[in-house]
């Protein structure tokens, strides 16, 4: 019965044939979503931030052990200890170059080079934003990781201008990027569940009190200076029972996220739950985790979908041929 519901155990890390289309979807999705973000936010104003903003101690829960987040080193913020901080025009040029690289990658023009350029410059700008604004944006992290995966794609996995695309080619070579992205997203959700246990304890569900958050979010909205929320969604979540159910579902499914790596049949259900979780976070907290939602959609089982469409098409074709009258 359980096996019938969950399907067979089949670790997704085991190499298997994947259609090239899946890598094309990841390439287009990663470049497209990153371009969307970089064309929406203006990073150049960060040049006005006081230098002290980038050297202060990080907020504890965001970076835990480290007084200086490692982002300071890995996004090359430390170079401004050696050279003057850039002007608004220089940051603007960085951003425009990033956007240019992302659009090149989206169109299939030197996609590997485009991914590396966008990753290095984009990470630098995101580093400015996170350190200067003293915040931690999970959607930017997922976006940068997607670019990292695309930068490391096997050569055959890219669609490129001037190269004939073969989206239906099946090969184990295309499995690596898909597995790595699925592993990353599962780890991200699992760690978020684990953090709830580590930071608060196993009774996080009881202490989460999404209903109190929702009531506060509505009441704060009386002033235009505060955080944004969807009033109807927050009033929906302000019922304690509904808030508790939502918290329980998030907690349980985050901790169970690694299951998606072992039960391919369950994986789409997990991914769609998390995609809807991001939507509900947008409605309640106004955080747009669209890169995370995009990653969830990029990980749907496209190979199985393509193969089943192919099978159905062949079956229909053979039926049509069989029904044709003999001449």
């Amino acid at each position, binding site marked *: 019965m359980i096996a019938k519901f969950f399907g067979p155990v089949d670790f997704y890390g085991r190499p298997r044939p994947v259609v090239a289309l899946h890598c094309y979807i990841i390439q287009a999705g990663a470049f497209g979503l990153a371009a969307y973000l970089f064309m929406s936010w203006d990073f150049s104003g960060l040049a006005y931030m006081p230098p002290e903003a980038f050297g202060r101690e990080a907020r504890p*829960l965001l970076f835990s052990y480290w007084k200086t*987040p490692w982002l300071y080193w890995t996004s090359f913020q430390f170079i401004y200890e050696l050279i003057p901080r850039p002007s608004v025009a220089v940051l603007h040029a960085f951003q425009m170059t990033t956007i240019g690289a992302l659009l090149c990658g989206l169109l299939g023009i030197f996609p590997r080079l485009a991914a590396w350029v966008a990753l290095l410059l984009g990470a630098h700008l995101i580093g400015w934003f996170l350190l200067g604004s003293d915040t931690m944006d999970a959607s930017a992290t997922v976006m940068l990781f997607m670019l990292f995966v695309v930068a490391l794609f096997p050569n055959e996995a890219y669609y490129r201008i001037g190269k004939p695309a073969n989206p239906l080619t099946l090969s184990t070579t295309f499995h690596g990027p898909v597995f790595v992205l699925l592993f990353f997203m599962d780890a991200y959700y699992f760690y978020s569940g684990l953090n709830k246990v580590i930071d608060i304890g196993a009774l996080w569900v009881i202490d989460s009190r999404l209903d109190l958050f929702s009531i506060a979010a509505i009441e704060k909205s009386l002033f*235009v200076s505060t*955080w944004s929320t969807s009033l109807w969604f927050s009033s929906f979540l302000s019922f304690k029972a509904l808030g508790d159910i939502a918290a329980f579902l998030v907690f349980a499914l985050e901790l169970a996220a690694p299951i998606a790596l072992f039960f391919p049949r369950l994986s789409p259900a997990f991914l769609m739950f998390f995609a809807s979780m991001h939507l509900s976070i947008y409605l309640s907290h106004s955080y747009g985790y669209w890169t995370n939602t995009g990653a969830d959609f990029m990980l749907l089982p496209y190979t199985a979908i393509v193969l089943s469409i192919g099978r159905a098409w062949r079956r229909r074709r053979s039926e049509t041929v069989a029904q044709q009258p003999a001449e």
Partner: protein
Amino acid sequence: METSTSGRRRQERISNGLFGYLGFVVAVALLLPVLSRLKPIRIDWLSDTGRIFLPWAIGLALVFVFFRRYIRRCCTGVAGWLSEAPSDRNRWVVVGVCLLIFTSYSWQLHIGIAHRGVPGWIYAGLPDIIKPDAPESLSMPPDVEPAVFASALQPAVLPFIHRSGYATSEVMFLHFKDGSIRPGNNELAMVSWPKATFGVENGQVAHEKEFFEIIRHNFVNRRAGGFMIPNRVAYPSHLNYQRIDYTSYPPASELVSVSLWSMTVRVDHKSKQMNVVGAAKIAQVNG
């Protein structure tokens, strides 16, 4: 024969390397919270928050010790897969990225492309926004019209309010050459905690010039309706302040100062009305 022997040796070396690396990660993961807890030795680059991770690190170490045979078997399997085609870069990429993700969490590293995940936020004990009693010493400034303060309120929220009382919040106002004073918010300053970034204390902003310039810079985009993509369809900012329509405001060149206030309103949920009953200036920055 020689090839298969060298292949086996390579596999063994990779397997030992993987197992050794995992052991190293677990050992450092255990060491970090222990170091955070050692009071006599203060380590400048470690924060006190790391202390709470000791149970987790011990759990990780115990898993490694109790399941070492299984972990060793996995390492051998992965090493075998890598050894099948040693020149296949893609296999090394897959294994390397998986190790990177494991390491970044175990050591709680935010490296830009990976971090520890969302912290365990809770809202139990969240103070009420609308309180039954009025704050002490409420007053209104004589030189500012009450309507100015009312413009920083959203009456459309009132149907969703289910209690009466007093609510207080910090609000920002933009002052223009024509004498008009209009509401803004800290999205323009690109900060979640302006006090931490710009040093607002005792009526003074430590970095006045920077604070004013960053607000003016972002106001230009906001007033124009967006950066490269219109605000209404743009990727939502992580600094998720309420969207204010700045399009009818005077141009940025006419911005002369920015003021921060603590403002209190009285809300009556039955009549669905609210009135500003107090406003105290926190700081003002002139351009």
